């Protein structure tokens, strides 16, 4: 086994640093090695029955034409969410989904997907909400795996039914609109992190080109700090080192001393930043999955719109 990346050293270091940091993390601290697996590690554990791999890709069909051997396909828009009301899937559904994927309570779940793990991160968050113990992301996701020329397979696996039991949803990981409003109005203390691009944040555009989901108001939630999600990763799509990540957020005043709420447009990329802040850095963080499509469409809520763009139907 050759580890090209000194993951364990980094992880150990990170752990030390975290322990040495003056902040007291409020939720259970997690080391990077707990949260992220390298492609090497995964390739070596493909046959490990305690490791279950799930693919959550945005683009339909990529799984079918080739996936990491043994990975089970998860459709984000039906399996992870309630398709009728806007909500994450129920605990019951998640339990059936994971059991069908052969997940037991003590399984290590490794998620990956296309597009920099956007929806894989969303999946990790949903699974965390329902109490899955050991949920990790494949560093670099599908893109890195393919770039490395690692093997794929086409036939879907047929895992034996698992025994996973979903817990009650953990409210500490999820923020709803009233909680966000309490922060905006100052009755609660938290830092809002907007992970959308600067043009959306400033209100210059309503949504990027080609994107359908939008609000009829431009701008961002008052007080939010803009850290586009892409800053979490390096050029090849793998996460930056915990040190770099810590420095990145410290530079904008986010050091884990206050609770954090991340949001984006519909909640998925916010999960990626949540993953970094909560799972890698061990900060107290929640995903506001209503995000801008809920907030910006809600009647009467305060908005910051520096660009002043006005909705005119286009």
């Amino acid at each position, binding site marked *: 086994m050759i580890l090209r990346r000194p993951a364990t050293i980094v992880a150990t270091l990170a752990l030390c640093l975290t322990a040495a940091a003056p902040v007291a993390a409020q939720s259970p601290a997690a080391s990077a090695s707990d949260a992220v697996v390298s492609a090497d590690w995964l390739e070596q554990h493909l046959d490990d029955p305690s490791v279950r791999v799930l693919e959550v890709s945005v683009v339909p069909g990529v799984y079918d034409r080739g996936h990491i051997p043994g990975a089970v396909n998860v459709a984000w828009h039906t399996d992870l969410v309630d398709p009728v009301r806007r909500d994450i899937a129920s605990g019951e559904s998640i339990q059936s989904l994971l059991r069908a994927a052969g997940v037991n309570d003590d399984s290590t779940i490794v998620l990956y997907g296309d597009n920099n793990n956007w929806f894989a991160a969303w999946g990790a968050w949903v699974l965390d909400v329902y109490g899955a113990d050991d949920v990790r992301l494949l560093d670099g996701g599908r893109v890195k795996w393919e770039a490395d020329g690692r093997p794929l397979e086409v036939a879907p696996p047929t895992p034996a039914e698992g025994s996973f039991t979903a817990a009650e949803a953990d409210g500490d990981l999820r923020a709803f609109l009233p909680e966000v409003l309490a922060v905006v109005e100052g009755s609660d203390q938290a830092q809002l992190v907007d992970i959308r691009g600067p043009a959306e944040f400033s209100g210059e555009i*309503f949504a990027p080109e080609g994107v359908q989901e939008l609000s009829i108001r431009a701008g961002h939630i008052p007080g939010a700090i803009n850290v586009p999600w892409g800053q979490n990763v390096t050029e090849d799509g793998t996460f930056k080192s915990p040190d770099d990540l810590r420095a990145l957020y410290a530079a904008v005043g986010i050091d884990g001393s206050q609770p954090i709420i991340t949001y984006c447009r519909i909640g998925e990329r916010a999960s990626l930043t949540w993953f970094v802040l909560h799972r890698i850095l061990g900060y107290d963080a929640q995903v506001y999955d209503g995000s801008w499509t809920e907030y910006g469409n809600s009647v009467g809520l305060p908005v910051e719109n520096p660009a002043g*763009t006005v909705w005119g139907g286009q």
Partner: protein
Amino acid sequence: MTVAVPPSDDPAQGGVVGISGPSTRVVAQRLAAGGLVAVVLVVVAGLLVGTPGQGVPAATSLAIGAALGVVFARGRFCFFCILRDLIEHRDSAPTYAILAALAVGGVGYAVVFGMFLPDPSTGRLPAQAFIGPVSWVLVAGGLCFGVGMALSGGCISALLYRMGEGYGRAPIGLLGALVGFGLGFLSWQPLYLATIVRAPEMWLPAELGYVGALVVHLGALGVLALLLMRWLPPTRPTETARPTLGAVYRRVFVWRWPALVTGALVGLIGAVAYLRVAPLGVTQQLGTLSRSVMTDAGLIGDRLNGLDAFSGCVAVVGELLVDNGWLVGAMVLGSFGVSIAGGRFRITGVTLRNGTTALLGGVLMGWGAMVALGCTVGTLLSGISAFAIAGWVFGAAVVAGVWLGIRLRLHTI
């Protein structure tokens, strides 16, 4: 009539004292053929009025387009030809057509603006006028457009009217423009976010009021007119003759119209177009077509951020044929009719070489017109007439592009 006879610029048509010409019968046939085109246009306009979804704006666009085609063709209102005369032949006479169009257009726009928006200092912009954002993208678009003009032998509006005269390279250049528009749409988003979103829509009347803006506008044109006088050729002597119907025929249908008359008519048509339908432009239909194809092919999204919020000769979403399409079509037909009536229609062939340059020039023009939100008609003519700084910037960039193209001998490839 005391209007003196202007000399023809085309010796093949009889030259300075050309009284002799085609026989009366031939002239009658030509006029009948041209009249037929006019009748077709009137009938189509009548049908449009009664067609749901088209109506009076479409018919008015048709009439405006036909008038524009006639004036462009008879006055040879081709920006490239005019600039080449100036740059290569040191003859500034045709340039006065552009100056006249801008002067008359400015007065016309001031009249219309004053109705639409009595107080220009409120920060509002008059509805739909082509007052675009000023940024380096506009300069790049203008340069690109100018070079493309030199390559393809005419700007987009010139290709349109010359298509009506049988110019074979015209449709190829227009095809290139469609491709260029597509490239423009592809590059829009990064350019918008990088620069255009923060680019100011500078409008003279907002600072100076209408009277002040008009004084500056006419003053600037006056200075240009004075500067260009040194390259005016001597006037040529005219015939001494009793005015005859034949002379009237030649003046109207055969000889090139005087620059000032042509320019004044272009300016007037522009003002009427703004008053009744929309600012004059010839690229909206082309852009709409290109955008529709690109959207259907999934190459661009349904929404081009920012684009739909700007006023300009820009593509419309979700439609295939817009009023501007009737204008462009009628322009070709108007030019065709008047060319036939004057016996000037002549189909010219295309070689591989000049077809390729036409195509490439068209692509450059299409890209330039897309990112500049219009071409020499929309952004330059309608923009400057609307007192938009963007119009002057684009105009300067186009002139620079043409100058570069001529220096590089692109027009002789």
